[in-house]
């Protein structure tokens, strides 16, 4: 009886209709896309309304025109920032999904990924191959290298620092994670300083081209300012989307994904069904770490110079994004990251304009963005996409 049931469910998996396949792999992407449009429209609408309302208060400049001129660029900035948080948040949310535990070392996994890229580019540069290598090949090679190293690192950290503590009270692995994070920072500092890479490591790339100018926005005095997106940012977004599709495929379609979801829902029961829980958890760390490593590589490529502490702040923000989206929910992590990125970009760019320079936007961006976050969480405590009974992973 039992055997029959198992084969039956296997058949269901293999004979999944094309439609459900598409909806499970690309559905979340659609959801993310809707949130991108939604955030842009809502926040853009708010700043335009504010500009209209405050128009009379400022006589020195045309507030409405100033607002509209930079709006497209602010949306692009927000999108790029959002995808950064989103890709890191995926790692937090996957680990939380299976272990209900916040892996605070994830920001450092991201940092290690960035350093792997820096080492890779330095090695290429010293052998003179950097300028001759095709940019696409370079990006692909660097991303895969970063994914491999960070993924394996995350897996070994789980083995050494978390698995022995799995039965311990919940705070214990948390402390262990903070410890791992400090260890990784300083070990990487030691390695970077002693290998000639330097504390401020350079991430060189082949020529990736000039920023892509999408439009010219007119501004006073017959001057126009370009709306542009950096080619590196474009690569970031494209790779992030590919990763999300891959992750959805993995979690929703494959047998491994089913095992991960089973472990997330009920670990003892999954174990009784013959799932090797330890292996599934290790694989989850591998996937989360690989995503973090890829994000690190893309981040380093975009910024050009990294140091061993670059992982801390993006890590913290990504954790916030994961909570905002509903921790444990993969699409939620993406959505949360994007919403947070938009909030920060809008506040940083517009606050100063609307307060006549009284409040510096960049200084207060975090305060305003996080206040809005608190408001959202008061009304939706389980996050934007979290449900009362969270559908984990």
């Amino acid at each position, binding site marked *: 009886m039992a055997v029959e049931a198992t084969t039956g469910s296997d058949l269901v998996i293999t004979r999944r209709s094309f439609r459900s396949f598409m909806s499970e792999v690309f559905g979340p992407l659609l959801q993310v896309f809707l949130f991108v449009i939604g955030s842009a429209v809502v926040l853009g609408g708010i700043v335009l309304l504010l500009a209209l309302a405050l128009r009379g208060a400022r006589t020195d400049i045309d507030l409405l025109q*100033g607002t509209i*001129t*930079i709006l497209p*660029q*602010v949306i692009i*900035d927000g999108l*790029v*920032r959002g995808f*950064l948080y989103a890709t890191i948040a995926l790692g937090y949310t996957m680990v939380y999904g299976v272990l209900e535990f916040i892996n605070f070392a994830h920001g450092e996994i991201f940092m290690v990924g960035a350093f792997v890229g820096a080492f890779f580019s330095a090695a290429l540069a010293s052998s003179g191959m950097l300028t001759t290598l095709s940019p696409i090949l370079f990006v692909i090679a660097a991303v895969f290298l970063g994914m491999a190293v960070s993924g394996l690192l995350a897996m070994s950290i789980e*083995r*050494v*620092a978390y*698995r*022995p503590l799995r039965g311990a009270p919940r705070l214990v692995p948390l402390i262990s994670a903070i410890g791992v994070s400090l*260890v990784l920072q*300083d*070990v990487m*500092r*030691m390695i970077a300083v002693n290998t000639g890479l*330097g*504390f*401020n490591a*350079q991430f060189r790339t082949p020529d990736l081209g000039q*920023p892509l100018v999408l439009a010219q926005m007119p*501004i006073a005095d017959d*001057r126009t*300012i*370009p709306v*542009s997106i*950096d080619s590196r940012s474009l690569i970031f977004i494209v790779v992030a989307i590919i990763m999300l599709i891959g992750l959805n495929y993995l979690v929703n379609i494959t047998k491994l994904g089913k095992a991960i979801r089973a472990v997330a829902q009920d670990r003892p029961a999954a174990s009784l069904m013959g799932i090797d829980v330890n292996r599934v958890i290790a694989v989850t760390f591998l996937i989360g770490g690989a995503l973090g490593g890829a994000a690190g590589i893309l*981040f380093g490529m*975009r*910024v*050009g*110079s*990294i*140091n061993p*502490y*670059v992982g801390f*702040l993006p890590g913290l923000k990504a954790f916030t994004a994961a909570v905002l989206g509903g921790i444990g929910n993969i699409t939620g992590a993406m959505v949360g990251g994007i919403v947070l990125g938009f909030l*920060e*970009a809008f506040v*940083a*760019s517009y606050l*100063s*304009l609307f307060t006549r*320079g009284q409040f*510096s*936007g*960049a*200084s207060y*961006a975090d305060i305003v963005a996080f206040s809005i976050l608190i408001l959202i969480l008061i009304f939706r405590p389980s996050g934007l996409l979290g449900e009362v009974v969270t559908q984990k992973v």
Partner: protein
Amino acid sequence: MKRISAFLIFALLGALLAACGGAPAAAPTAAPTTPPAEATAAPAPPSGGMTGVIKIATQSPLSGPQAALGVGIRNGAELGLEQLGKTLTDMGFTVELAPFDDQAKPEVGSANAKNIISDNDILCLVGHLNSGVALASLPDYQAASLVMVSPANTNPKITESGYPNAFRIVGRDDVQGAVGEEFARTELNIKSVYIIHDKTDYGQGVAEFFRQNAEKNGITVLGFEGTEEKSVFDSILTPIQAANPDLIYFGGIYDQAAPLFKQARDRGITAAFLGPDGLDSPVLLEVAGDAVKGMYYTSVAAPVSQFPDAAKFAEDYQAKYNEAAPPFSAQAYDAAGICIQAIANAATAANGKPTRAQVLEAMKTLGTFKGITGSYEFNAKGDPVKGAYFVLQVSTEAGAPAEVWNKNAVVKRLEIAAP
């Protein structure tokens, strides 16, 4: 299973300890270069009281993003102790350097300060690099009457807060901000400026002084923003691009300025860049590359090559540490020299190893000290009576950043009395 993990954890801890142990162990090795044997061999000491260990402490960031400058301060002081410490060793004392790493963090500096004052052999301190760290540590130094001679702190509050034990051999931000503003207005013909700072005592301080002077003298200030962002400056650059200023003034340190300037140029922002002495590091050029070539910055400390008396120091530094002397290292050498002179004066007056209070008294009556970066005389607040200020231009030559940086030219030199 459990045993293996425990073993791994121990192995990890062991590796860590080994890693941590490496750095501090290297520091005290410099001390024995002033051989205590001299004390016994030379029958010179006039009295039996002139014995014992005298330590001069340094506090500067030896690790972290600003270590390039902080290590320079430590090394400069170490060299100063080796070459000028003879005054004290001839008297019969043993002289040692006690380097501390403040990590450019106020809380670390303050914790170190408590360690420093609990060591009674430490009679004088050379430090800090960061004004914010110095301000956090000064209350502890004051409680112990420990003299602090700063080779780099430019925030006015250092000497304006009423600490009798705070001295510096560099100029002040209120003057430095004004020097930058005047240079931008008269030499660069700047009509509008966008000011960004790093929200620290130092960066925001100098940026505020720039803004005050700019507003007073008719430069339009299009924006004044503070940020702790270190890598992605998109949200700051978008409003700048719309405002289209002639100049971007950055009040802060090079580790933040470099990516900011680089990303601004990548975006097609053509404004000129200007900043204070926090930008004075080859790392700026290394990270920002072409974006900063030819830009100007103001400084209280010109490159070592600008001081004719410091040529030997530059050679000695290169020989001993195998790198070009970074900014502020020559000032640290002089600060150590001032410490030694004050301690020697106090020792002569007390006819024995002086107390910290006696060293402080000696500092106040030091008179003129002739160092390798200039002659220093302190006013009642602890400022040099006349501070030197420089406007420098980043060299446009090709080559390794550390070497190119030393070719930066002084475009203007001003001697301005402390306000």
